[in-house]
């Protein structure tokens, strides 16, 4: 019964089906009662289609958006880049050095995060910026310098150790083949406990 009422209200019945339905509506009190319930709800919903709300809110949307654009322009690139490295480091090291039998424990990773870290992580995963958005803005030398700067800060190293920070020849599979399970577990725990940002 409900489906026919809905089809009727939704304009899904053919002309002849519509006529039959209307005829039945006049002769069946049960159908009429149910139909009236739908009409009453529909009418309540219609009232809520065009609600008047304070114009001040809508007038403020564009200024608020422009403010956010300015803030994003100033901060987003550096943050995304730093966070990308941190996240990439966690994920690469986790998958390469993953202790056997252990699954990625998100609760463990996230337990020291602040609400802000969490928002940033989610925002990063949703990827409003692509890697090319970041790299397009730096040439290779600048990119190396930015990465080294971030890593130096994160690892509290003196600046003359920078040259050791980026080594593209590292083969993580070879490293993992050379260390035993205990060492892998130790590294894994250190990664989990490290505050990257």
């Amino acid at each position: 019964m409900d489906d026919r009422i809905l089809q009727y209200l939704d304009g899904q019945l053919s002309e002849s089906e519509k006529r039959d339905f209307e005829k039945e509506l006049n002769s069946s009190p049960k159908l009429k009662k149910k139909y009236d319930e739908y009409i009453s709800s529909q009418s309540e919903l219609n009232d809520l289609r065009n609600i008047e709300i304070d114009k001040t809110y809508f007038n403020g949307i564009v200024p608020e958006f422009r403010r956010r654009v300015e803030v994003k322009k100033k901060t987003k690139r550096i943050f995304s880049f730093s966070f990308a490295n941190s996240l990439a480091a966690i994920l690469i090291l986790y998958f390469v050095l993953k202790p056997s039998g252990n699954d990625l424990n998100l609760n463990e990773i996230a337990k020291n995060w602040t609400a802000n870290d969490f928002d940033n992580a989610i925002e990063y995963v949703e990827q409003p910026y692509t890697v090319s958005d970041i790299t397009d803005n730096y040439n290779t030398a600048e990119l190396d310098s930015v990465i080294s700067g971030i890593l130096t800060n994160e690892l509290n190293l003196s600046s003359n150790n920078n040259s050791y920070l980026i080594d593209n020849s590292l083969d993580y599979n070879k490293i993992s083949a050379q260390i035993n399970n205990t060492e892998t577990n130790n590294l894994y725990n250190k990664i989990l406990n490290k505050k990257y940002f």
Partner: protein
Amino acid sequence: MSNAEEDLSLVKNFIDGDETSFNRLVLKYQQKIYWHARRMTGNHFDAEEVVQEVLMVIYKKLKGFEFRSSLYTWIYTITSTRSINFINRRKVKESFSIDDESFIDLKSDEKIIHNIETKEKLEKLDKILQLLPLKQREVFILRNFDEMNYEEISNITGKSIGGLKANYFHAFKKVVELMKEDNNG
């Protein structure tokens, strides 16, 4: 100038570097974006955030918009997707207990709706819509409030028209039941 022509002109001007054209687009669509987000998320506080996210996405992607669909449909697709993402994020946050309900400013409606009766009706609707499964809620809002036909909804959601009709009817039945319960209780 037709609606579509006006959109095309604003987008072209924006691509040519006229930032005020973007502002005009926002003014044209902001209420639709807000109300869709509001009905999806169930409160002003979250809707406000989704509106800003949607604008940011439009701003960044508009230069690549090729008018394969209407701008209107495209904006709704972004709004709907962002609303669903926001709701999912909210669920994740709640499961990590980072935010609780007290974080949401439930009194924020008072700032934007001055009529008490309207405010109460809207709160009731917010509550009822939140009880619908997300996909049903999306279809119900697009069909009932945004007054779209099934073909437009299908373009936005990527779902078949048959499936959308089934979702809409399920949602409508549930809304009627919940409204009846609320009116009796």
